[in-house]
């Protein structure tokens, strides 16, 4: 039995420690806000937080998440999360929405580390989050807007 702390709640799961964390989150815990995009840590749709750091849950194994605070898109909170989601809403960033959980999770980590990111910082930080609808310009604008709100 493996114990995972997800969004502040403890869960006992009968899964292999090598199971991708994404599968445990979606299939065992029914938290489907985190998406499967590629399964190879290349697209960013699966980004969650482990102790506040980004983690690509399709690649990070359940065993590596034991003992850490796992936060999914359903459980984000705090001033940075609020600034990001508010900016996302006010700038109408989302089109189909499939990539956006991952985009938001990555943007929160970016702004936690860097309160005033330049365009280059945003390029490097958001490099691994792919959007097939091409909302990149709005994502960039939203990150800048969130940074201003947090200043």
């Amino acid at each position, binding site marked *: 039995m493996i114990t995972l702390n997800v969004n502040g709640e403890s869960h006992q799961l009968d899964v292999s420690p*090598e199971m*991708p964390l994404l599968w445990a989150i979606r299939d065992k815990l029914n938290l489907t806000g985190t998406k499967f995009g590629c*399964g*190879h*840590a*290349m697209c960013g749709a699966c*980004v969650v937080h482990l102790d506040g*750091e*980004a*983690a*690509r849950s*399709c*690649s*990070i*194994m359940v065993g*590596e998440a034991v003992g850490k605070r796992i936060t999914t898109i359903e459980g984000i909170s705090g001033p940075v999360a609020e600034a990001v989601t508010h900016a996302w809403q006010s700038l109408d960033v989302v089109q189909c929405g499939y990539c956006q959980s991952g985009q938001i*999770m*990555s*943007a929160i*980590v*970016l702004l936690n*580390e*860097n309160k005033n990111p330049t365009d280059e*910082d945003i390029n*490097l*930080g*958001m*490099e*691994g*989050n792919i959007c097939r609808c091409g909302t990149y310009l709005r994502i960039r604008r939203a990150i800048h807007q969130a940074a201003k709100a947090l200043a």
Partner: protein
Amino acid sequence: MANRNLYRTNQGLRARPGVLIVLLILLGTRSAVWGQTQSAGAGDSLAAWGKIVTVLQHPRCLNCHQLNSPLQGDSRRMHIPHVVRGADSHGVGPMRCGNCHNDSNNLTSRTPGAPEWSLAPVSMLWQGLSSGDLCRMLKDPARNGKRSPEALVEHMSSPLVLWGWNPGPGLEPVPIPHAEFINLMKVWAAGGTACPK
């Protein structure tokens, strides 16, 4: 019951001549190797380096002994997605090495993994170095993490280095077996860490 166990123990090697022979062969081999490393001269050392450098320049090693961004795969292409060193050599923001790479290979996502997955320190930049320059860098304590030749040999068995021999699906392991590589390192060290020009 106790008597029977003592009886078995007392039989020991005398009752198992096959085991004794194998042990003697192994001991003999080991002392031959040790003898070779003890008596290695500069010529042996240089010859050993000729093989050692092929390991260091293999993609499993060279891909992360880069300046700002790792290479990826046997084709040594740019790492996709694009990642950079960052202040602590472990990446930046939501693109840190540990965000995707575990402490062991992930066979489902095919992401390789080992403890402390990261770029090598900048002082250990190997890309573009000739065999001679790489040799001189490797033995320079100012650039090799203050390691003596003995400590260098030990380092070649640390978990991240060992990963090179067990990289997971789709990646060629270092072609020289690890035990042979360690022996080459010992011969190189014992013969005075000789370097080509």
